[in-house]
């Protein structure tokens, strides 16, 4: 692939999404749809981050919702108990998540395969347990209300305002991720995915790279969590729970590991599906379980890579 072709590729996917983002509201019959779309893009942001970790670097995190919770509760607690303006709390949450990822990641990322999977799972559940128990700060299992986001004098309430915030954040996050992919670090991460030992003898500091991308993906999740809290006006510890972490993983798997546009598709399917199946709401978990099993057994590469191959007509 020549340089121009590569660049064209990268921007084309994103441009298409941007175009969809701009045109979509015209098709919304009511603000309900705007809100659902907003949720999709908020989750998609976290999924892009997780994709950097799982798809590019080949690591696994079954506890990523822990960072979503940290981001969400940073806003909730910071704004409610500490009087910090909500918008600043987003940054504080991100910094906190990055720091925690760094501290926790250091020992944990030395593990491989299912050991790593379970360690991250343990981390996520521990975060959820702390959030549930420290009721004085967090409001306990029923959660707490989150004040509205206020930028200067404007109180961000409307579904439309959040739609643009969520979509532009996603586009920025996706652009950063695509940029990272087409860079020395991106190649180093993909190398680590395929052979850590070869990466090491080529001069790549594998632990450092893994830690860095773990922190970056934690920050993506944290921002997503902060948005979620502010958008919903409420947050509960479930946002950090085991099931939430698994949903994030399912979104990555569905859309295609390592595919940034796939992140959007994965988030879209798993956010919209429960909404459309309101009649079948009680089957939600069954469907999630089936999707996860089905994709991991038969369609491990997810929707996007398969689709991309079919469109390009190339064998990957």
């Amino acid at each position: 692939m020549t340089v121009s072709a590569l660049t064209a590729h990268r921007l084309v996917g994103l441009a298409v999404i941007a175009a969809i983002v701009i045109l979509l509201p015209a098709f919304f019959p009511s603000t309900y749809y705007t809100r659902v779309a907003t949720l999709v893009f908020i989750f998609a942001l976290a999924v892009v981050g997780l994709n950097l970790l799982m798809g590019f670097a080949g690591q696994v995190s079954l506890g990523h919702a822990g960072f979503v919770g940290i981001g969400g509760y940073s806003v909730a607690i910071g704004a409610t108990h500490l009087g910090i303006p909500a918008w600043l709390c987003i940054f504080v949450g991100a910094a906190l998540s990055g720091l925690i990822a760094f501290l926790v990641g250091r020992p944990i990322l030395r593990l491989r395969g299912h050991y790593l999977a379970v360690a991250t799972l343990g981390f996520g559940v521990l975060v959820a347990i702390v959030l549930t128990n420290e009721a004085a700060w967090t409001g306990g299992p029923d959660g707490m209300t989150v004040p509205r986001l206020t930028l200067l004098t404007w109180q961000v309430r409307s579904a439309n305002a959040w739609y643009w915030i969520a979509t532009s954040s996603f586009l920025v996050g996706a652009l950063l991720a695509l940029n990272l992919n087409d860079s020395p670090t991106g190649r180093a991460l993909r190398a680590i995915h395929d052979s850590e030992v070869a990466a090491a003898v080529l001069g790549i500091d594998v632990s450092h790279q893994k830690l860095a991308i773990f922190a970056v993906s934690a920050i993506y999740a944290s921002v997503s969590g902060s948005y979620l809290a502010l958008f919903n006006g409420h947050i509960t510890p479930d946002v950090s729970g085991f099931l939430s972490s698994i949903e994030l993983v399912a979104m990555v798997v569905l859309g295609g590991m390592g595919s940034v546009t796939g992140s959007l598709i994965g988030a879209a399917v798993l956010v919209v599906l429960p909404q459309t199946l309101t009649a079948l709401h009680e089957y939600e978990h069954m469907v999630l379980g089936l999707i996860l099993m089905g994709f991991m057994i038969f369609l491990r590469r997810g929707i996007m890579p398969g689709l991309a191959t079919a469109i390009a007509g190339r064998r990957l």
Partner: protein
Amino acid sequence: MTILEAERLSIAFGGVQAIDEVSLTIDPGIVFSIIGPNGAGKTTLFNLISGLYTPQDGRVRFDGADVTGLAPYRLARRGLSRTFQNLQIFFRMTVLENAMVGRHRHEGAGLWAELLHLPSVRRCNSETREAARAALARVGLLVNADQPAGTLPYGALRRLEIARALATEPRVLLLDEPAAGCNPVETQALDRVIRSIVNEGVTVVLVEHDMRLVMNISDRIHVLANGRTLTEGTVAEVRTNPAVVEAYLGAHGTSEAAHAVR
């Protein structure tokens, strides 16, 4: 001045002494081969020298500096590169990308520059691409640059590993059985590649079973057996050493060695 030196290296795995007080002295710019039967500890020795294993005893010196126990990535940054006996190709990446990863120690972009895709990163990418293409050209893989690495045949993959290691611009290159599974034509191509590498001043340390290649190309040969040094010397010395001939080359190996043209 020697460029690579191992001094009384020893390591044991669960009661088995894999390497027992092995010492090597390697001068710059030569082809130094390590031979011995299977299980002699050749790859273990490589792993000790390239930092994958930490020796329980002994030292490794690279260009005069003590690098014993240094992590592989640090050794790589000092100019020590290696290939693997069981291919460690990045199968999900293209041939070109594999070689580009080899340029890692020469790239210097910061995380922020990468996230924002600043001009410095773009420049870095093109330089890396050019250098990688040059490395591929040297092993005859330029034409396959955009293919996924997984589609290449075995012999080509071995060459890709070498190209990738070359891209790091090493001062010492460790080749772990590069001719394994190669047919005579491929082995000849390998011979030419190794000679061109040495001509540039790179020191090549070779672990090989293919006696014809070894006898053809080596300046010095170190013979390992049961984790210990049996002998070391020039091609002529090793070839005629009765202990070596008897124990390791056997009748077949001796005739192969005799047929190799210097």
